[in-house]
């Protein structure tokens, strides 16, 4: 056997050598495949993978801009950004969350809602993101946490800028408020510019001037790891802060107007007829806009929504009231300018008016009648019969057309969104809206500012301002100028007055004189607000809230308070070179001269006597 074994040895050695060569070849083939694959990855697709690698690690983080501030005409701050302190927890750094929350609860009030929100956000965010557990900490709470801080690793106080309205309720309807961006807004806005911004203007100036106030977002290029943790900042483009707004509004005047209302509801607008600048804009009751900034609680919101007084309702822009007798100067002017009646021509008022060949008596507010009245008398004493007759003579078409010149029936174009246009009835409108022909009786009612005719307080003030300037129509404006913090003031937006056609300036003077007599005349309906410090031209009005339908019984018991007429008042001052035009509506205030006029007087007093032009 040793013989064969020796022969085998040589043969086996050669066999092994051959196999070793084969394996070496295979090894080289496989290594070549490997190197080809590597060359494909590292040379051919190098750029592709470099891009992917970069996309992996480089993220863009938005830097939200600081929202522009809002000032009144005197530089009083109306909307600011206040640092608020919130207590935030980084879950990653907390060992025992249950205990930490319990211990925290002992030094700082944490409500069930807070906990719920915290746990909800905790599920959505990453472990190293800090999540607020309590917002708007008081100074005392901040201090109390600060001394205990060492006991709470992973819990920190964060300062953020939060919109704040120092004057609160008074300004709520003008400024509006900002709130968290909701789904509909998300679809509307430029999301890249709002990346990192949590709040957006919801109403009022905040909404209208959102673009100006918001500014431009900045960007930071950061390097992140696979978990999304920030490693370092690669590049940074700072944001452009939003521009500041300076309003025409006078905070003091606004306060005076609000005060003048007392506990009554209604609306008041004051406009500078020369510029269209809105000096005061009060809608009572208001609400605390600061509640909306951090997210209003559902209980608070429900209370605001369901309140009978409708505090969220902007009466200035959206409250549509029959103008009542405040329409008379405009109707009167329509009569004069169209030549339907001469200023001196008198009409007899027996206390009622009857259309020719009609039995129905259209009654004057004064049962016994005003006797023989001129245009001036009719305005001063607010004679209804005179205006029934005049309206009848004018006809609906001429009347509507003329009133339309003063922007009745359409939005004034004020720079706050959400404005309603009121209703200026026409034949056309009635056919379209009611499928009915226009009845002559409706023209009479419209002539005294009742019936279908509806105006907003802003429209009334705007029309009054236009009357004061002899037809120079300037759209009302809330914002006077826009100023960016770095650059000097932008030039003010040019006012665009539209001059109404004037047939005879004397007609305007006559109407204005009549309105002066409303205050100064012995029989003027607003004689109680007479002052010798400056001259006022005005007109009172009373608007029926609601007409009792013919088949309904008038039930004094249930509707008395809410059924009282609205008191209206329009005025401007001084009569020569007017600087302020006012419209006041006091809901369920009764007679305009009694309820609304004193408020207008308070506004004008504050403006004329304190504020130097």
């Amino acid at each position, binding site marked *: 056997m*040793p013989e*064969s*074994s*020796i022969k*085998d*040895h*040589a*043969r*086996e*050695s*050669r*066999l*092994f*050598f051959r*196999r*070793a060569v084969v*394996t*070496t070849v295979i*090894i080289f083939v*496989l*290594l070549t*495949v*490997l*190197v080809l*694959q*590597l*060359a494909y*990855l*590292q*040379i051919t*697709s*190098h750029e*592709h*993978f*470099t891009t*992917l*690698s*970069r996309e*992996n*690690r480089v993220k863009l983080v938005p830097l939200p801009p600081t929202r522009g501030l809002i000032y009144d005409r005197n530089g009083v701050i109306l909307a600011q950004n206040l640092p608020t302190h919130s207590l935030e927890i980084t879950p990653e750094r907390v060992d025992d969350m249950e205990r930490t929350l319990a211990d925290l609860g002992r030094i700082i009030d944490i409500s069930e809602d807070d906990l719920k929100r915290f746990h909800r956000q905790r599920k959505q965010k990453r472990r190293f993101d800090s999540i607020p557990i309590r917002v708007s900490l008081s100074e005392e709470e901040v201090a109390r946490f600060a001394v205990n801080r060492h006991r709470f690793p992973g819990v920190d106080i964060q300062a953020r800028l939060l919109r704040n309205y120092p004057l609160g309720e008074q300004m709520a309807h003008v400024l509006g408020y900002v709130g968290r961006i909701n789904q509909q807004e998300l679809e509307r806005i430029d999301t890249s510019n709002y990346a990192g911004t949590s709040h957006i203007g919801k109403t009022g100036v905040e909404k209208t001037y959102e673009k100006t106030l918001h500014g431009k977002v900045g960007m930071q290029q950061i*390097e*992140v*790891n*696979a*978990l999304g943790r920030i*490693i370092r900042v690669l590049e940074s483009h700072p944001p452009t802060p939003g521009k500041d707004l300076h309003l025409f509004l006078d905070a003091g005047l606004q306060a005076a107007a609000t005060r003048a209302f007392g506990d009554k509801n209604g609306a008041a607008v004051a406009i500078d007829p020369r510029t269209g600048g809105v000096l005061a804009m009060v809608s009572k009751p208001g609400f605390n806009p600061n509640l909306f900034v951090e997210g209003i609680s559902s209980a608070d919101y429900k209370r605001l929504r369901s309140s009978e007084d409708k505090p969220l309702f902007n009466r200035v822009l959206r409250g549509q009231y029959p103008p009542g007798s405040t329409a008379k100067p405009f109707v009167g002017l329509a009569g004069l300018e169209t030549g339907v009646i001469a200023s001196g021509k008198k009409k007899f008022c027996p206390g009622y008016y009857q259309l020719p060949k009609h039995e129905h008596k259209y009654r004057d507010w004064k049962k016994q009648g005003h006797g023989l009245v001129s245009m001036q008398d009719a305005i001063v004493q607010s004679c209804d019969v005179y205006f029934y007759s005049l309206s009848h003579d004018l006809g609906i078409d001429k009347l509507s057309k003329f009133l339309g010149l003063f922007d009745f029936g359409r939005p004034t174009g004020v720079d706050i969104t959400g404005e309603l246009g009121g209703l200026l009835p026409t034949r056309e409108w009635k056919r379209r809206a009611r499928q009915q022909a226009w009845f002559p009786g409706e023209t009479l009612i419209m002539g005294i500012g009742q019936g279908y005719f509806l105006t907003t307080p802003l429209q009334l003030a705007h029309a009054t301002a236009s009357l004061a300037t002899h037809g120079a129509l300037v759209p009302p404006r809330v914002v006077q100028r826009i100023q960016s913090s770095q650059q000097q003031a932008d030039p003010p937006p040019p006012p665009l007055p539209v001059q109404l056609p004037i047939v005879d300036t004397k007609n305007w003077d006559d109407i204005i004189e009549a309105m002066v007599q409303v205050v100064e005349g012995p029989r003027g309906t607003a004689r109680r607000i007479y002052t010798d410090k400056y001259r006022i031209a005005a007109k009172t009005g009373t608007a029926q809230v609601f007409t009792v339908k013919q088949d309904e019984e008038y039930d004094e018991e249930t509707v008395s308070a809410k059924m009282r007429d609205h008191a209206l008042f329009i005025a401007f001052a001084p009569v020569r070179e007017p600087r302020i035009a006012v419209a006041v509506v006091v809901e369920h205030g009764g007679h305009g001269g009694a309820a609304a006029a004193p408020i207008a007087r308070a506004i004008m007093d504050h403006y004329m006597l304190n504020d130097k032009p």
Partner: protein
Amino acid sequence: MKFPSASSPPAAPESTPARPQGLLAGRLHLDPPLLTGLILLCGFGLIVLYSASGEDLAQVERQLIRLAIAFSVLFVMAQVPPAQLRRWSPWLFGAGILMLIAVLVAGQIGKGAQRWLDLGLFRFQPSELIKIAVPMMLAWFLSEARLPPDWRRLSIAAGMTIVPVLLIAKQPDLGTALLVASAGIFVLFLAGISWWLIGGLAVLLGALAPLLWYLMRPYQRQRVLTFLNPESDPLGAGYHIIQSKIAIGSGGVYGKGWLNGTQSHLEFLPESSTDFIFAVLAEEFGLVGILVLLALYLFIILRGLYIATRAQDTYGRLLGGALTLVVFVYVFVNTGMVTGLLPVVGIPLPLVSYGGTSLVTIMAGFGILMSIHTHRKLLPP
């Protein structure tokens, strides 16, 4: 015929070093070229590990300790003469099989996958022993008779491979099972089984593939599916391969530079210091670095094959050849996985990946190779 002097080997009891002039090659029974290659590779590995571990010096230190242990094992194994190893082969194999069964039983009791045997003082992974025991056993068994083996011996040898492979696959440890199977196959291949048989087995394996699929665990199937289409699950199972490819591809020809790999340092690359360390190297050192690494591996493997061909007996040849080729399997399966050529199989990059068990086994294998080379008897002139 080429060995005219192979008339009758002297029955000298003491073995004399082949090259008495070299200390390493001589009394210490080390092979200087192989040792140099191994040290260079491990050194390169430590440099990459430092970066892959996120510049964690403690981790590098731990690896250094493991390397020291592994080199000690290499040194010890180099001192054991091949004849001794040959005598141990069946016993080692038997013990290995028993321990695999023990692990499986313990695993079933413990209700879960288990690969270790807790021996009180330390944990022992029998599958590592079997990686060496299987080629030893086969080399011993096949060298007992003339080569190429006859059908009977071939079937028994096949059985000796399949039993431990199945035991390991059951653990389940697909990577190790693959390595053990390849070790057995290499011994058979080097022993000269006929090409017809090899072809036939390849066809059979192809036919059995559906059965294999059926036997696979869900996570193993998922790996194969992910390999076939990694983009189908970019955040799940495909994430590893995608991120690894990004790391390699973004490295380019010259790499991003040491410690500058973003994929690994920012933790996008999973298992960056263990199974996917190759991607870290590729990202930071580029194609150039990879070619250096592959050149080192190639050098070691070719040196191993050279040692095997120069071995004096069939046992040494078969064992040395198989152990060397297993290292190539390690390299190719790992790099193939990391570059997306092969499905994800948990096999480390030998001598570079962080981790101890396989390192010791591989070094033991190289120790055996050195023993085979340095215990050759001086042939009479």
